[in-house]
């Protein structure tokens, strides 16, 4: 059996779903950030897959690289935010961080 586009898409969908699942269910903000990393990576898989099987040249690769850079920057900032949240609220449990409601 030859590995085709569909297999890549299935893997990326699984990854994406697991990312969503982690974002929605995890209570720890760090774990939620990790879920976001999963989603970003599933998107990267899609880019690469479409770049390989579609007639797009190197554009998909470039964007994947761009996303990885972006994910690194995002992680740095998000972790800084989480650290600040922890400093002010003494918790990283996002169920308790519902100040937006007020």
């Amino acid at each position, binding site marked *: 059996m030859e590995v085709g586009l569909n297999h890549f898409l299935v893997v990326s969908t699984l990854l994406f779903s697991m990312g*969503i699942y982690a*974002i*929605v*269910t995890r209570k720890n903000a760090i774990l*939620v950030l990790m879920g976001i990393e999963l989603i970003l990576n599933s998107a990267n898989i899609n880019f690469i897959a479409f770049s390989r099987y579609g007639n797009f040249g190197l554009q998909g690769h470039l964007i994947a690289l761009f996303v990885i850079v972006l994910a690194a920057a995002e992680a740095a900032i998000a972790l800084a935010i989480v650290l600040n949240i922890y400093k002010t609220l003494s918790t990283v449990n*996002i*169920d308790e*961080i*519902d*100040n*937006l*409601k*007020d």
Partner: protein
Amino acid sequence: MTESVLINLSTAILFLPLLGFIVTLLLGKKVKSVFLFEVFILTVVLIASVVLAFGKLSYFADDKITAEFEWFRLTDTFAIKLGFLIDNITVLMLFVVALISGLVHYFSIAYMKGDERYNRYFAYLGLFTFSMNGIVLTHSIIMMYMFWELVGLSSYLLIGFWFEKKSAADAGKKAFLVNRIGDTGMLIGILILYITYHTFSFDQIFSSISAGVLPFNSDFWLSVTGILLFMGAIGKSAQFPLHVWLPDAMEGPTPVSALIHAATMVAAGVYLTIRIFGLLTADAMMFIAIIGMLSAFIPATIALTQNDIKKVLAYSTVSQLGYMVMALGVGAYKFAFFHLVTHAFFKACLFLGSGSVIHSMHHEQDIRNMGGLRKKMPLTYITFLISSLAVSGIPLTSGFLSKDGILAGTFAFGSLTGYWIFAVAGLLVALLTAFYMFRLVVITFHGEPRDHHKFEHAKESPFVMAMPLAVLAVLSIFIFYTPNPVSAEQGWFLTKWINSPELHTPNSTRFDFMQSAEMIAQTNVSEHSTVLYSEQYSEAMHSAHYPAMFLSLFAAALGIFLAFAFYQWKKVNVDKLVSNVKPLYNFSFNKWFFDEFYQKTFVTGLFGFSRFMSWFDAKIVDGIVNGSATVTHAFSTFMGGFDKYVVDGLVNFMAYLSGFFGLIFRRVQTGKVQTYIVLVVFSIIIFFFFF
């Protein structure tokens, strides 16, 4: 002697009594003897009026002197002017008023002695004299109306002078109110004259009528105007059907009754009719004659049975005034004024005589308690007797002359127009008058005293009361009016002193006998002419003279004879006679039930009407107001409800709706990021699912 002297004298005669009134009224409480000032003023007025009459009759016998000035002006065309019209009738009337007023002043000095409002009484007399002089002197109908109301006021004040007595206060009110009825008609008449002629002056009105200007351009309205003006006379001269106030007015002091309610004020109505004689049409004169006839006859029958000495005289006054009015109605103009003058003297004498009796009997007025006073009060008796002879129309008295003239006038009128009823009524009244006057004389002065206690204390009145009686009784003798004791036609009073009347009405509206011969002969002469009375009339008058004289003499003699037979010689049992004709007696004794009739109809009717109006006001008018208020209130309540429930409801509903949806949607806003993400994801899934 010039005209300006006469005018100045008239001004003095008019205003001196006003001065007397003001001074006496203001100083009345401080200075006890201030009444002497008023008496002095009246003496001056009396002398002035004698001089005026003498000057006018000697030097200006045929002139009409007028003087006027503008009182005030409201617009360019509307100005009220005051002024004098001095003709022979004016000066004679002024003399009569001044003389009787003066004598009444003297008489009152003794009669009113001891009254607590002594000075005020004299002040009121001054006010009355002022107002009466104003009526007599005026040249315009509006000024006459003003003084007309002023005499009404002074009459009211004097009738109610003893206002502590309820009957006196009521009588004053009655006199005033009844007079108002007549005055209202007069005012309407004056207004019709004004809107037609734009002037109030008699002379100008008459000359306009002569020029053919008529109210509303119709003969009919000229008659109506005459009758409306005459309504003032009906009220003031107590003519039928407004005669009811005069007998009640006897509640006032007796000298007042003599002055106001016998001699002068009640004659003002006749004077008014004389002044407006020039505009009376045949229809108006007929109306006046009928009113006069009824007023002469009805009170004469009432006077037969009255027991109050003043009431008898009061009804006699109404009856004699009716005579004068009837005389004017049938065209006997000169005799009407002649009778006015003679009647003023002898009726004032009768009233003052009755005042003298009442004074000496300590305010006893019921003739059934009198009797035999002849011996105690000889002078009062003699003067009373002379005046009674005069009012009954016995020769050698002034009353005979004037009454005979009026009867001759009614006879002539009957023969010329066919209406003999006035002559018949005149004779009947002459009979009745003689009877009730001598009933009064016999019961009061003859026979035996009935109340011995009062009789013992009765004594002749003092000089100030006796002197006026004597003067007035002397003036009731023929010689002052004419040298011929049986006919006044050629006497100086009728030929020299009274001017011939002028008639200004269109020829077609006059009685035939009031059109002169040449007017009848030549139809193309001016339609209007002031010439009065045809040859035919003087012939009829001449031929009526002797029959009228003998018949009236017979009637008077019969009346006197019956009175003596009934009450002096007692040939007839009066009580039995009365019980035989009880209904008639009661009818007369109760004054034909006029008061009861008016009470039942007009007074009750008016009260009923007032109650209806009050009910109408309270229920209908207030009902409408309250109803509209209720409707407004109900509408407002509805609008309020609408506002509150519908408009506010809508607004609130929207708010509620927003709130409701807000409640629903706020559930979504948990503030938890994860929930939002779930929603976003689901939304995207649904979005993809559909598109």
